[in-house]
């Protein structure tokens, strides 16, 4: 399917934990499961590695959506990292709601290493949601130049 260069495509950043979500994404690839190509992946050792500041940074940089995905509760390779990630995400979401960022731009999921199809499903859903929301205009860092 060919898109014209003028048509906007969502640009989504995905933080995937090495042991589960990244492996799940890998499995999706190996299984040749199709999913939207709009995500850029950053592999982290654990979803607990993700500092909420990175998510804010991504939004400043102009990403239209951010996904953080980790191991299922109880299955974290580092035992508790995903629990901390979930709590941080919960607090961040409250902050983003307060600040006025549209609901659905920043999302969180649990995908295990065996869930290739689920990963593809999550990406499809997140991409569609962000596509409906449109480009990120509220938190992207913009500079203006003044012309005399």
């Amino acid at each position, binding site marked *: 399917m060919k898109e014209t260069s003028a048509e906007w495509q969502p640009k989504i950043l995905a933080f995937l934990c090495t042991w589960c979500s990244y492996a799940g994404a890998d499995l999706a690839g190996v299984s040749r499961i199709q999913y939207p190509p709009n995500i850029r992946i*950053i592999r982290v050792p654990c979803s607990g*590695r993700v500092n909420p500041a*990175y998510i804010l940074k991504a939004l400043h940089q102009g990403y239209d959506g951010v996904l953080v995905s980790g191991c299922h509760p109880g299955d974290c*390779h580092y*035992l508790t*990292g995903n629990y*901390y990630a979930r709590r941080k995400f919960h607090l961040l979401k409250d902050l983003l709601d307060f600040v006025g960022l549209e609901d659905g731009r920043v999302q969180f999921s649990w995908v295990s290493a065996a869930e290739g199809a689920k990963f593809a499903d999550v990406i499809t859903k997140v991409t569609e949601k962000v596509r409906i929301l449109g480009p990120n205009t509220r938190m992207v860092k913009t500079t203006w130049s003044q012309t005399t």
Partner: protein
Amino acid sequence: AMLASTVEQIKRHPLIRVHFNTTVREIKGFVGNYESILSDGANFKHGAILVTTGASEYRPTEYGYGQSATIVTQTEFSDRLAKGLAKQPKNIVMIQCVGSREDPRQYCSRVCCSKAIQNAIRVKELFPAVNVYVLYRDIRTYGYRELYYTEARDKGVFFIRFDLDHRPEIVFDGSSAGTKPTPTVVIKDTVLGQQLKIKADYVVLSAGIVADHEANDALAKQLKVPINQDGFFMEAHAKLRPVEFATDGVYVAGLAHSPKAVEESMTQALAAASRACVLLTQKELNAHGTVSNVNPERCLACGLCEKVCAFSAIGLELQRIGKEDRLLPKVNLALCKGCGACAASCRCSAIILRGCTEEQVIAEIIAL
């Protein structure tokens, strides 16, 4: 008597020291470098820890246990059989899954069906005319013990199936003189579709195996290892690492880990000892490179990193930086797994996780 020679070997072995009736007061250190203090004052260094604290038999509260001298557990019944029953019994009823496979313990205790059938066969050998009834939900005679189940059936042991909605009931017959009420077991036989009332000379309860949840919890906190919801120690991985914990240097075997038969405990213990030896034969331990590092210039010593670390690999300590003593986090390179929970929690960006630094992540965010 069976263990007499093993006990002798242990007593005589120059490298084995047994402390009876002692508890561990404190364990300091980490894998390869432990120092333990016992309640009898003994103090020594060691490289590994093996947890074989066992478990106990469930003390039933159901089926009239405690209300009659003839309502006993399988182990108590085994004792009585060995000593010899006072008089020839007519009916013996065994009830399976007592305290297992239902809330609050959903697990199967693994050994009770085998034990019950073993005892049932023994009874039939001693008193061929006795009626032995085994009331069960499922018969789980693991492995080759299935042959004993066949033998029991061949010998004429009755097996009556029930489910949780139609449990056996113990009714006490008031007619026997004062001291010892005779239990009658009431059970609906699903094949006949009728209720049976069995006046039992013995009601033998196959009580399950329970962990000492409180004691295990306390020990687990000392050793920094996890406990599962049933109070047993939880291994690192059921298939790939069955005798170790996520925390390096600690190993587990036997009933402390889960209900199992004696030979299974022995096998697991040999495995745990082997794994401990793999550790102990090394002169040095190589830490993987992806560990945390602290930048003292940025650190506020808030202690959040210490709180979030699942491996107790980072902790605030007084350290000499230049000319002054400061409270700063110290990373234990042997314990750090490189997950980055500390780095992610640090509000001063004072922790550098090698291999996934903040600068690296930000660079990726900008570049992608």
